[in-house]
Protein backbone atom coordinates (compact mmCIF):
# COMPACT_ATOMS: atom_id res chain seq x y z
CA UNK A 1 0.00 0.00 0.00
CA UNK A 2 1.18 3.49 -0.80
CA UNK A 3 0.05 6.40 1.34
CA UNK A 4 0.80 9.95 0.34
CA UNK A 5 0.09 12.30 3.23
CA UNK A 6 0.01 16.02 2.62
CA UNK A 7 3.06 15.98 0.38
CA UNK A 8 4.54 19.16 -1.04
CA UNK A 9 7.68 19.25 -3.11
CA UNK A 10 9.79 22.17 -4.27
CA UNK A 11 12.73 21.76 -6.69
CA UNK A 12 16.00 23.58 -5.92
CA UNK A 13 15.14 26.16 -8.61
CA UNK A 14 12.10 27.13 -6.57
CA UNK A 15 9.41 25.43 -8.66
CA UNK A 16 6.64 24.16 -6.39
CA UNK A 17 5.82 20.92 -8.19
CA UNK A 18 3.51 19.34 -5.58
CA UNK A 19 1.17 21.14 -3.21
CA UNK A 20 -0.27 19.19 -0.32
CA UNK A 21 -1.03 16.03 -2.24
CA UNK A 22 -2.76 13.17 -0.42
CA UNK A 23 -3.55 9.83 -1.99
CA UNK A 24 -3.86 6.17 -1.01
CA UNK A 25 -3.15 3.36 -3.43
CA UNK A 26 -4.05 -0.13 -2.23
CA UNK A 27 -2.39 -3.44 -3.06
CA UNK A 28 -3.71 -4.88 -6.28
CA UNK A 29 -4.88 -1.52 -7.54
CA UNK A 30 -4.27 -0.25 -11.07
CA UNK A 31 -4.05 3.52 -11.18
CA UNK A 32 -3.42 5.82 -14.13
CA UNK A 33 -2.20 9.30 -13.23
CA UNK A 34 -3.11 11.78 -15.94
CA UNK A 35 -3.12 15.51 -16.50
CA UNK A 36 -1.47 18.66 -17.69
CA UNK A 37 2.18 18.93 -18.69
CA UNK A 38 4.09 20.09 -15.66
CA UNK A 39 1.25 19.09 -13.30
CA UNK A 40 3.68 17.16 -11.11
CA UNK A 41 2.93 13.57 -12.17
CA UNK A 42 6.55 12.52 -12.62
CA UNK A 43 7.54 14.38 -9.47
CA UNK A 44 4.84 12.51 -7.54
CA UNK A 45 5.73 9.00 -8.69
CA UNK A 46 9.45 9.60 -8.13
CA UNK A 47 8.57 9.88 -4.44
CA UNK A 48 7.23 6.32 -4.42
CA UNK A 49 10.66 4.74 -4.81
CA UNK A 50 12.49 7.38 -2.84
CA UNK A 51 14.20 9.07 -5.80
CA UNK A 52 12.76 12.28 -4.43
CA UNK A 53 11.80 12.93 -0.82
CA UNK A 54 8.92 15.23 0.12
CA UNK A 55 9.79 18.79 1.10
CA UNK A 56 6.80 18.61 3.47
CA UNK A 57 4.51 15.72 4.34
CA UNK A 58 5.15 11.99 4.28
CA UNK A 59 5.01 8.95 2.03
CA UNK A 60 4.54 5.44 3.37
CA UNK A 61 5.24 2.39 1.24
CA UNK A 62 3.91 -0.72 2.98
CA UNK A 63 3.84 1.24 6.18
CA UNK A 64 7.45 2.39 5.93
CA UNK A 65 8.23 6.11 5.73
CA UNK A 66 10.32 6.73 2.59
CA UNK A 67 12.43 9.20 4.54
CA UNK A 68 13.51 6.47 6.93
CA UNK A 69 14.72 3.84 4.43
CA UNK A 70 17.45 3.76 1.82
CA UNK A 71 16.66 4.01 -1.89
CA UNK A 72 18.23 0.56 -2.27
CA UNK A 73 15.72 -1.00 0.14
CA UNK A 74 12.78 0.70 -1.54
CA UNK A 75 14.09 -0.30 -4.94
CA UNK A 76 13.52 -3.97 -4.11
CA UNK A 77 9.86 -3.33 -3.72
CA UNK A 78 9.11 -0.62 -6.23
CA UNK A 79 10.12 -1.11 -9.87
CA UNK A 80 10.35 2.19 -11.70
CA UNK A 81 10.42 2.89 -15.45
CA UNK A 82 11.44 6.46 -16.31
CA UNK A 83 9.51 8.68 -18.69
CA UNK A 84 12.65 8.97 -20.80
CA UNK A 85 14.34 5.56 -21.21
CA UNK A 86 17.70 7.23 -21.82
CA UNK A 87 17.78 8.10 -18.11
CA UNK A 88 17.69 4.44 -17.27
CA UNK A 89 19.73 2.50 -19.81
CA UNK A 90 23.48 2.18 -19.45
CA UNK A 91 24.60 -1.40 -20.14
CA UNK A 92 26.45 -2.60 -23.23
CA UNK A 93 23.81 -5.05 -24.37
CA UNK A 94 20.07 -5.38 -24.03
CA UNK A 95 20.56 -8.69 -22.24
CA UNK A 96 22.87 -7.19 -19.61
CA UNK A 97 20.47 -4.32 -19.13
CA UNK A 98 17.56 -6.62 -18.40
CA UNK A 99 19.74 -8.83 -16.16
CA UNK A 100 21.22 -5.91 -14.23
CA UNK A 101 18.70 -5.59 -11.40
CA UNK A 102 18.37 -9.37 -11.09
CA UNK A 103 22.15 -9.67 -10.62
CA UNK A 104 22.14 -6.77 -8.23
CA UNK A 105 19.49 -8.43 -6.11
CA UNK A 106 21.57 -11.62 -6.00
CA UNK A 107 19.32 -13.99 -7.94
CA UNK A 108 20.89 -17.25 -9.10
CA UNK A 109 22.40 -17.27 -12.59
CA UNK A 110 19.96 -19.93 -13.81
CA UNK A 111 16.97 -17.92 -12.57
CA UNK A 112 18.40 -14.78 -14.13
CA UNK A 113 18.69 -16.52 -17.48
CA UNK A 114 15.10 -17.66 -17.37
CA UNK A 115 13.70 -14.32 -16.25
CA UNK A 116 15.68 -12.41 -18.87
CA UNK A 117 14.56 -14.70 -21.67
CA UNK A 118 10.98 -14.38 -20.47
CA UNK A 119 11.07 -10.57 -20.33
CA UNK A 120 12.76 -10.21 -23.71
CA UNK A 121 10.12 -12.40 -25.25
CA UNK A 122 7.29 -10.49 -23.58
CA UNK A 123 8.54 -7.23 -25.05
CA UNK A 124 9.50 -8.56 -28.47
CA UNK A 125 13.19 -7.91 -27.94
CA UNK A 126 14.70 -11.36 -28.24
CA UNK A 127 16.35 -10.55 -31.56
CA UNK A 128 18.17 -7.62 -29.92
CA UNK A 129 19.65 -9.62 -27.05
CA UNK A 130 23.21 -8.77 -27.97
CA UNK A 131 22.55 -5.30 -29.36
CA UNK A 132 23.48 -2.10 -27.55
CA UNK A 133 20.38 -0.35 -26.18
CA UNK A 134 21.68 2.83 -27.79
CA UNK A 135 21.37 1.32 -31.25
CA UNK A 136 17.66 0.77 -30.98
CA UNK A 137 14.61 2.77 -32.04
CA UNK A 138 12.84 4.98 -29.50
CA UNK A 139 10.03 2.51 -28.91
CA UNK A 140 12.44 -0.39 -28.60
CA UNK A 141 14.46 1.49 -25.98
CA UNK A 142 11.34 2.10 -23.97
CA UNK A 143 10.60 -1.62 -24.09
CA UNK A 144 14.10 -2.45 -22.85
CA UNK A 145 13.44 -0.18 -19.88
CA UNK A 146 10.12 -1.94 -19.28
CA UNK A 147 11.74 -5.38 -19.60
CA UNK A 148 14.49 -4.51 -17.13
CA UNK A 149 11.89 -3.79 -14.46
CA UNK A 150 9.26 -6.41 -15.24
CA UNK A 151 12.01 -9.08 -15.28
CA UNK A 152 12.44 -9.00 -11.51
CA UNK A 153 8.74 -9.02 -10.76
CA UNK A 154 8.48 -6.13 -8.30
CA UNK A 155 5.58 -5.85 -5.92
CA UNK A 156 4.80 -2.31 -7.02
CA UNK A 157 5.31 -1.30 -10.64
CA UNK A 158 5.53 2.38 -11.56
CA UNK A 159 5.59 3.10 -15.27
CA UNK A 160 6.03 6.69 -16.42
CA UNK A 161 4.48 6.93 -19.90
CA UNK A 162 4.76 3.22 -20.78
CA UNK A 163 3.03 3.53 -24.16
CA UNK A 164 5.29 6.19 -25.66
CA UNK A 165 6.60 5.04 -29.00
CA UNK A 166 4.54 1.85 -28.88
CA UNK A 167 2.35 0.65 -31.69
CA UNK A 168 -1.10 -0.76 -31.13
CA UNK A 169 0.06 -4.35 -30.85
CA UNK A 170 2.69 -3.57 -28.20
CA UNK A 171 0.17 -1.53 -26.21
CA UNK A 172 -2.28 -4.40 -26.26
CA UNK A 173 0.39 -6.84 -25.03
CA UNK A 174 1.34 -4.45 -22.26
CA UNK A 175 -2.29 -4.04 -21.24
CA UNK A 176 -2.81 -7.78 -21.03
CA UNK A 177 0.32 -8.14 -18.97
CA UNK A 178 -0.81 -5.47 -16.53
CA UNK A 179 -4.10 -7.32 -16.14
CA UNK A 180 -2.08 -10.40 -15.12
CA UNK A 181 -0.06 -8.37 -12.61
CA UNK A 182 -3.25 -7.09 -11.03
CA UNK A 183 -4.61 -10.62 -10.83
CA UNK A 184 -1.49 -11.44 -8.76
CA UNK A 185 -2.36 -8.51 -6.48
CA UNK A 186 0.58 -6.42 -7.61
CA UNK A 187 0.12 -2.68 -7.61
CA UNK A 188 0.48 -0.96 -10.96
CA UNK A 189 0.77 2.80 -11.27
CA UNK A 190 1.13 4.36 -14.68
CA UNK A 191 1.57 7.99 -15.64
CA UNK A 192 0.14 8.55 -19.08
CA UNK A 193 -1.30 10.94 -21.63
CA UNK A 194 -2.67 8.04 -23.65
CA UNK A 195 -6.41 8.45 -23.11
CA UNK A 196 -7.30 5.60 -25.46
CA UNK A 197 -5.01 3.23 -23.57
CA UNK A 198 -6.62 4.16 -20.25
CA UNK A 199 -10.11 3.77 -21.75
CA UNK A 200 -9.11 0.31 -22.90
CA UNK A 201 -7.57 -0.59 -19.51
CA UNK A 202 -10.52 0.73 -17.52
CA UNK A 203 -8.23 1.47 -14.57
CA UNK A 204 -8.68 3.93 -11.75
CA UNK A 205 -7.75 7.42 -12.79
CA UNK A 206 -6.14 10.23 -10.80
CA UNK A 207 -6.28 13.62 -12.51
CA UNK A 208 -3.65 16.23 -11.70
CA UNK A 209 -3.21 19.91 -12.50
CA UNK A 210 -0.82 22.50 -11.09
CA UNK A 211 0.72 20.35 -8.40
CA UNK A 212 -2.59 19.08 -7.08
CA UNK A 213 -4.94 16.16 -7.49
CA UNK A 214 -8.13 17.54 -9.00
CA UNK A 215 -10.16 14.34 -8.98
CA UNK A 216 -10.00 10.57 -8.79
CA UNK A 217 -12.37 7.80 -9.73
CA UNK A 218 -13.03 5.16 -12.36
CA UNK A 219 -11.84 5.73 -15.93
CA UNK A 220 -15.48 6.07 -16.92
CA UNK A 221 -16.26 8.72 -14.32
CA UNK A 222 -13.15 10.73 -15.07
CA UNK A 223 -12.92 10.50 -18.86
CA UNK A 224 -16.57 11.28 -19.56
CA UNK A 225 -16.77 14.30 -17.25
CA UNK A 226 -16.15 17.19 -19.60
CA UNK A 227 -15.43 19.74 -16.86
CA UNK A 228 -12.76 17.54 -15.27
CA UNK A 229 -11.34 16.56 -18.62
CA UNK A 230 -10.80 20.21 -19.49
CA UNK A 231 -9.42 21.06 -16.07
CA UNK A 232 -6.79 18.33 -16.40
CA UNK A 233 -5.92 19.29 -20.00
CA UNK A 234 -6.90 15.94 -21.41
CA UNK A 235 -9.59 15.02 -23.93
CA UNK A 236 -12.32 12.39 -23.83
CA UNK A 237 -11.75 9.12 -25.69
CA UNK A 238 -12.88 9.14 -29.31
CA UNK A 239 -15.76 6.78 -28.51
CA UNK A 240 -17.07 9.19 -25.84
CA UNK A 241 -16.89 12.05 -28.33
CA UNK A 242 -18.81 10.06 -30.94
CA UNK A 243 -21.56 9.06 -28.52
CA UNK A 244 -22.02 12.54 -27.15
CA UNK A 245 -23.46 13.43 -30.56
CA UNK A 246 -25.84 10.47 -30.43
CA UNK A 247 -27.44 11.35 -27.07
CA UNK A 248 -30.55 12.74 -28.79
CA UNK A 249 -31.18 9.34 -30.30
CA UNK A 250 -31.23 7.76 -26.86
CA UNK A 251 -27.68 6.41 -26.76
CA UNK A 252 -25.76 6.41 -23.46
CA UNK A 253 -23.12 9.12 -23.09
CA UNK A 254 -20.76 7.40 -20.71
CA UNK A 255 -19.08 4.93 -23.06
CA UNK A 256 -15.30 4.95 -23.32
CA UNK A 257 -14.16 2.02 -25.43
CA UNK A 258 -14.99 -0.01 -28.52
CA UNK A 259 -16.43 -3.00 -26.64
CA UNK A 260 -19.00 -0.89 -24.83
CA UNK A 261 -19.81 1.03 -28.00
CA UNK A 262 -20.35 -2.08 -30.04
CA UNK A 263 -22.60 -3.62 -27.44
CA UNK A 264 -24.73 -0.47 -27.05
CA UNK A 265 -25.19 -0.09 -30.80
CA UNK A 266 -26.02 -3.73 -31.45
CA UNK A 267 -28.49 -3.66 -28.58
CA UNK A 268 -30.18 -0.60 -29.98
CA UNK A 269 -30.32 -2.05 -33.48
CA UNK A 270 -31.43 -5.39 -32.03
CA UNK A 271 -28.67 -7.27 -33.78
CA UNK A 272 -27.39 -10.40 -32.01
CA UNK A 273 -23.78 -9.95 -30.93
Amino acid at each position, binding site marked *: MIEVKGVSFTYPNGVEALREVSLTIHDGEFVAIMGQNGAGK*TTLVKQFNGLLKPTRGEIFVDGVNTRKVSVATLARKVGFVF*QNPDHQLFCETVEDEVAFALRNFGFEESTIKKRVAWALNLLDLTEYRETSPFMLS*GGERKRVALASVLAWNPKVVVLDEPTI*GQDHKQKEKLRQFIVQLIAQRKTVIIVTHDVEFVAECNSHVVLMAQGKIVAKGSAKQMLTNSALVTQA*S*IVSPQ*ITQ*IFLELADLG*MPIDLINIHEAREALLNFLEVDS
Partner: protein
Amino acid sequence: MTVIEAKGLTYTYPGGTRRALEDVSITIEKGEFVILTGPSGCGKTTLCRCLNGLVPNFYGGKLEGEILVTGLKVSEHQIYELARHVGLVFQNPENQLFALFVEKDVAFGLENLGVPRDEIRKRVDWALQMTNIENLRERAPHELSGGQQQRVAIACVLAMQPDVMVLDEPTSFLDPLGAQQIFDVISRLNKELGITVVMVEHRLDLASRYSNHVVVMDKGKVVLDGEPKDVFSSEAARLIGVGIPKATRLSQVLEMSGVRLGRVPVTSEEASQVLKEVLSRD
Protein backbone atom coordinates in the same frame (compact mmCIF):
# COMPACT_ATOMS: atom_id res chain seq x y z
CA MET B 1 5.00 20.45 -57.09
CA THR B 2 6.94 17.55 -55.61
CA VAL B 3 8.77 18.48 -52.40
CA ILE B 4 10.10 15.13 -51.30
CA GLU B 5 11.07 12.39 -53.65
CA ALA B 6 12.76 9.25 -52.36
CA LYS B 7 13.72 6.45 -54.70
CA GLY B 8 14.89 3.03 -53.60
CA LEU B 9 16.31 4.07 -50.22
CA THR B 10 18.12 1.20 -48.57
CA TYR B 11 20.13 1.65 -45.41
CA THR B 12 21.76 -0.34 -42.62
CA TYR B 13 23.19 1.41 -39.53
CA PRO B 14 26.89 0.73 -38.88
CA GLY B 15 26.88 -2.27 -36.55
CA GLY B 16 23.18 -2.85 -37.21
CA THR B 17 22.00 -6.40 -37.73
CA ARG B 18 19.40 -5.75 -40.38
CA ARG B 19 18.25 -3.19 -42.87
CA ALA B 20 16.54 -0.22 -41.28
CA LEU B 21 15.24 0.83 -44.71
CA GLU B 22 14.68 -1.41 -47.65
CA ASP B 23 13.88 -0.04 -51.08
CA VAL B 24 11.79 2.85 -49.78
CA SER B 25 10.23 5.07 -52.43
CA ILE B 26 7.81 7.87 -51.63
CA THR B 27 6.63 11.05 -53.30
CA ILE B 28 5.27 13.96 -51.29
CA GLU B 29 3.74 17.05 -52.87
CA LYS B 30 4.02 20.59 -51.58
CA GLY B 31 1.38 21.34 -48.96
CA GLU B 32 0.59 17.75 -48.07
CA PHE B 33 0.11 16.70 -44.43
CA VAL B 34 1.58 13.24 -44.29
CA ILE B 35 1.25 10.81 -41.41
CA LEU B 36 3.98 8.21 -41.25
CA THR B 37 3.13 5.24 -39.07
CA GLY B 38 3.90 1.56 -38.55
CA PRO B 39 5.14 -0.79 -35.82
CA SER B 40 7.91 0.17 -33.43
CA GLY B 41 11.27 -0.38 -35.13
CA CYS B 42 9.91 -0.33 -38.70
CA GLY B 43 12.17 2.54 -39.83
CA LYS B 44 10.09 5.70 -39.37
CA THR B 45 12.76 7.65 -37.50
CA THR B 46 15.41 6.46 -39.93
CA LEU B 47 13.37 7.78 -42.86
CA CYS B 48 12.97 11.13 -41.06
CA ARG B 49 16.73 11.24 -40.59
CA CYS B 50 17.18 10.78 -44.33
CA LEU B 51 15.04 13.83 -45.01
CA ASN B 52 17.48 16.21 -43.34
CA GLY B 53 20.67 14.33 -44.05
CA LEU B 54 21.36 12.97 -40.53
CA VAL B 55 21.37 9.60 -42.26
CA PRO B 56 23.97 8.99 -43.53
CA ASN B 57 25.97 12.18 -42.76
CA PHE B 58 25.80 11.87 -38.97
CA TYR B 59 25.04 8.17 -38.44
CA GLY B 60 27.50 6.89 -41.05
CA GLY B 61 27.07 3.85 -43.24
CA LYS B 62 25.99 3.92 -46.83
CA LEU B 63 22.60 5.11 -48.01
CA GLU B 64 21.65 3.55 -51.33
CA GLY B 65 19.09 5.17 -53.56
CA GLU B 66 18.33 8.81 -54.05
CA ILE B 67 16.50 11.47 -52.13
CA LEU B 68 15.53 14.98 -53.12
CA VAL B 69 14.03 17.49 -50.72
CA THR B 70 12.83 20.85 -52.08
CA GLY B 71 14.79 20.06 -55.20
CA LEU B 72 18.07 19.50 -53.35
CA LYS B 73 19.89 16.21 -53.49
CA VAL B 74 20.30 15.49 -49.78
CA SER B 75 23.53 13.57 -50.38
CA GLU B 76 25.19 16.65 -51.90
CA HIS B 77 24.43 19.11 -49.10
CA GLN B 78 25.55 19.62 -45.53
CA ILE B 79 23.09 19.22 -42.66
CA TYR B 80 23.27 22.96 -41.87
CA GLU B 81 22.44 23.89 -45.47
CA LEU B 82 19.42 21.61 -45.42
CA ALA B 83 18.26 23.06 -42.09
CA ARG B 84 17.00 26.13 -43.95
CA HIS B 85 14.53 23.96 -45.83
CA VAL B 86 13.80 21.02 -43.55
CA GLY B 87 13.16 21.22 -39.81
CA LEU B 88 13.15 18.05 -37.73
CA VAL B 89 11.54 17.63 -34.30
CA PHE B 90 13.36 14.69 -32.71
CA GLN B 91 11.51 11.77 -31.19
CA ASN B 92 13.33 12.38 -27.92
CA PRO B 93 13.06 16.12 -27.24
CA GLU B 94 15.91 16.06 -24.78
CA ASN B 95 18.39 15.22 -27.53
CA GLN B 96 17.50 18.43 -29.28
CA LEU B 97 17.90 20.87 -26.39
CA PHE B 98 21.28 22.04 -25.18
CA ALA B 99 21.13 25.77 -24.40
CA LEU B 100 21.00 27.15 -20.87
CA PHE B 101 17.71 28.92 -21.41
CA VAL B 102 14.60 27.92 -23.31
CA GLU B 103 14.60 31.19 -25.22
CA LYS B 104 18.21 30.61 -26.39
CA ASP B 105 17.35 27.17 -27.69
CA VAL B 106 14.45 28.50 -29.73
CA ALA B 107 16.58 31.33 -31.18
CA PHE B 108 19.56 29.11 -31.98
CA GLY B 109 18.59 28.00 -35.48
CA LEU B 110 17.66 31.52 -36.52
CA GLU B 111 20.93 32.95 -35.22
CA ASN B 112 22.76 30.37 -37.29
CA LEU B 113 20.98 31.52 -40.41
CA GLY B 114 22.00 35.11 -39.68
CA VAL B 115 18.42 36.34 -39.31
CA PRO B 116 18.30 39.98 -38.02
CA ARG B 117 17.84 40.46 -34.24
CA ASP B 118 14.40 42.05 -34.40
CA GLU B 119 13.09 39.33 -36.62
CA ILE B 120 14.54 36.65 -34.31
CA ARG B 121 12.83 38.20 -31.30
CA LYS B 122 9.51 38.32 -33.13
CA ARG B 123 9.69 34.74 -34.29
CA VAL B 124 10.84 33.40 -30.92
CA ASP B 125 7.98 35.19 -29.16
CA TRP B 126 5.54 33.81 -31.67
CA ALA B 127 6.86 30.22 -31.38
CA LEU B 128 6.77 30.34 -27.57
CA GLN B 129 3.24 31.63 -27.73
CA MET B 130 2.10 28.93 -30.17
CA THR B 131 3.46 26.20 -27.92
CA ASN B 132 2.13 27.85 -24.78
CA ILE B 133 5.45 28.14 -22.97
CA GLU B 134 6.00 31.90 -22.76
CA ASN B 135 6.22 31.51 -18.98
CA LEU B 136 9.14 29.09 -19.35
CA ARG B 137 11.35 31.28 -21.53
CA GLU B 138 13.97 31.85 -18.85
CA ARG B 139 13.94 28.32 -17.48
CA ALA B 140 16.69 25.75 -18.11
CA PRO B 141 15.51 23.11 -20.60
CA HIS B 142 16.90 20.24 -18.50
CA GLU B 143 14.84 21.36 -15.52
CA LEU B 144 11.53 21.01 -17.34
CA SER B 145 8.96 18.24 -17.38
CA GLY B 146 8.91 15.88 -20.39
CA GLY B 147 6.00 17.63 -22.04
CA GLN B 148 7.45 21.07 -21.44
CA GLN B 149 10.68 19.94 -23.13
CA GLN B 150 8.75 18.64 -26.09
CA ARG B 151 7.01 21.99 -26.44
CA VAL B 152 10.41 23.68 -26.56
CA ALA B 153 11.62 21.25 -29.24
CA ILE B 154 8.53 22.02 -31.32
CA ALA B 155 8.98 25.77 -30.79
CA CYS B 156 12.55 25.50 -32.15
CA VAL B 157 11.27 24.18 -35.46
CA LEU B 158 8.19 26.43 -35.61
CA ALA B 159 10.44 29.49 -35.25
CA MET B 160 12.42 28.41 -38.32
CA GLN B 161 9.31 28.14 -40.52
CA PRO B 162 11.06 25.76 -42.91
CA ASP B 163 9.50 24.59 -46.20
CA VAL B 164 9.18 21.09 -44.79
CA MET B 165 8.49 20.20 -41.16
CA VAL B 166 9.34 16.69 -40.13
CA LEU B 167 7.96 15.81 -36.71
CA ASP B 168 8.89 12.49 -35.14
CA GLU B 169 6.10 11.67 -32.66
CA PRO B 170 5.93 15.33 -31.69
CA THR B 171 3.13 14.95 -29.17
CA SER B 172 4.11 11.75 -27.38
CA PHE B 173 4.92 13.68 -24.18
CA LEU B 174 2.12 16.23 -24.49
CA ASP B 175 -1.09 16.27 -22.53
CA PRO B 176 -3.96 15.48 -24.92
CA LEU B 177 -5.36 18.99 -24.98
CA GLY B 178 -1.88 20.35 -25.67
CA ALA B 179 -1.42 17.77 -28.41
CA GLN B 180 -4.61 18.94 -30.06
CA GLN B 181 -3.50 22.57 -29.87
CA ILE B 182 -0.13 21.71 -31.43
CA PHE B 183 -1.83 19.76 -34.21
CA ASP B 184 -4.04 22.80 -34.83
CA VAL B 185 -1.05 25.13 -35.05
CA ILE B 186 0.80 22.84 -37.43
CA SER B 187 -2.30 22.33 -39.52
CA ARG B 188 -2.72 26.10 -39.79
CA LEU B 189 0.87 26.56 -40.96
CA ASN B 190 0.28 23.76 -43.41
CA LYS B 191 -2.87 25.37 -44.83
CA GLU B 192 -1.93 29.06 -44.65
CA LEU B 193 1.76 28.95 -45.52
CA GLY B 194 1.77 25.77 -47.56
CA ILE B 195 4.39 24.20 -45.28
CA THR B 196 4.67 20.52 -46.04
CA VAL B 197 4.28 18.33 -42.96
CA VAL B 198 5.59 14.84 -42.37
CA MET B 199 4.52 13.56 -38.97
CA VAL B 200 5.29 10.25 -37.33
CA GLU B 201 2.36 9.20 -35.13
CA HIS B 202 0.98 6.15 -33.38
CA ARG B 203 -2.02 7.90 -31.83
CA LEU B 204 -4.03 8.18 -34.99
CA ASP B 205 -7.26 8.97 -33.14
CA LEU B 206 -5.95 12.47 -32.57
CA ALA B 207 -3.91 13.06 -35.70
CA SER B 208 -5.92 11.59 -38.56
CA ARG B 209 -8.27 14.50 -39.10
CA TYR B 210 -5.40 16.74 -40.15
CA SER B 211 -3.87 14.46 -42.73
CA ASN B 212 -4.54 13.83 -46.39
CA HIS B 213 -1.85 11.24 -46.99
CA VAL B 214 -0.86 8.26 -44.85
CA VAL B 215 2.25 6.14 -45.28
CA VAL B 216 2.56 2.88 -43.37
CA MET B 217 5.91 1.14 -43.02
CA ASP B 218 6.69 -2.36 -41.81
CA LYS B 219 10.12 -3.95 -41.41
CA GLY B 220 11.91 -1.18 -43.29
CA LYS B 221 9.50 -1.11 -46.23
CA VAL B 222 6.63 1.10 -47.26
CA VAL B 223 3.61 -1.19 -47.27
CA LEU B 224 0.68 1.23 -47.61
CA ASP B 225 0.61 4.68 -49.13
CA GLY B 226 -2.62 6.56 -49.80
CA GLU B 227 -5.60 8.45 -48.42
CA PRO B 228 -6.39 8.01 -44.71
CA LYS B 229 -9.73 6.26 -45.13
CA ASP B 230 -8.35 3.78 -47.67
CA VAL B 231 -5.28 3.01 -45.60
CA PHE B 232 -7.12 2.67 -42.28
CA SER B 233 -9.84 0.45 -43.68
CA SER B 234 -7.40 -1.93 -45.34
CA GLU B 235 -6.96 -5.38 -43.89
CA ALA B 236 -3.18 -4.93 -44.05
CA ALA B 237 -3.24 -1.97 -41.66
CA ARG B 238 -5.09 -3.99 -39.06
CA LEU B 239 -2.81 -6.99 -39.40
CA ILE B 240 0.36 -4.93 -39.08
CA GLY B 241 -1.02 -3.58 -35.83
CA VAL B 242 -1.46 0.07 -36.81
CA GLY B 243 -3.47 1.98 -34.21
CA ILE B 244 -6.47 2.54 -36.48
CA PRO B 245 -8.65 5.45 -35.26
CA LYS B 246 -11.48 4.26 -33.01
CA ALA B 247 -13.99 5.86 -35.40
CA THR B 248 -12.78 3.61 -38.19
CA ARG B 249 -12.38 0.59 -35.92
CA LEU B 250 -15.93 0.95 -34.63
CA SER B 251 -17.29 0.95 -38.17
CA GLN B 252 -15.31 -2.22 -38.86
CA VAL B 253 -16.63 -4.15 -35.86
CA LEU B 254 -20.17 -3.10 -36.74
CA GLU B 255 -19.77 -4.24 -40.33
CA MET B 256 -18.50 -7.56 -38.99
CA SER B 257 -21.75 -7.91 -37.04
CA GLY B 258 -23.70 -7.28 -40.21
CA VAL B 259 -24.47 -3.57 -39.74
CA ARG B 260 -23.97 -1.83 -43.08
CA LEU B 261 -22.62 1.70 -42.79
CA GLY B 262 -21.89 2.51 -46.40
CA ARG B 263 -18.76 4.60 -45.82
CA VAL B 264 -15.64 4.67 -43.71
CA PRO B 265 -15.44 7.31 -40.95
CA VAL B 266 -12.03 8.54 -39.81
CA THR B 267 -12.89 11.36 -37.39
CA SER B 268 -15.40 11.29 -34.54
CA GLU B 269 -17.64 13.79 -36.37
CA GLU B 270 -17.78 11.50 -39.39
CA ALA B 271 -18.54 8.51 -37.18
CA SER B 272 -21.36 10.32 -35.34
CA GLN B 273 -22.83 11.34 -38.68
CA VAL B 274 -22.74 7.84 -40.14
CA LEU B 275 -24.16 6.33 -36.94
CA LYS B 276 -26.96 8.92 -36.79
CA GLU B 277 -28.04 7.82 -40.24
CA VAL B 278 -27.92 4.14 -39.28
CA LEU B 279 -29.74 4.63 -35.98
CA SER B 280 -32.58 6.58 -37.55
CA ARG B 281 -32.88 4.29 -40.53
CA ASP B 282 -35.95 2.48 -39.26
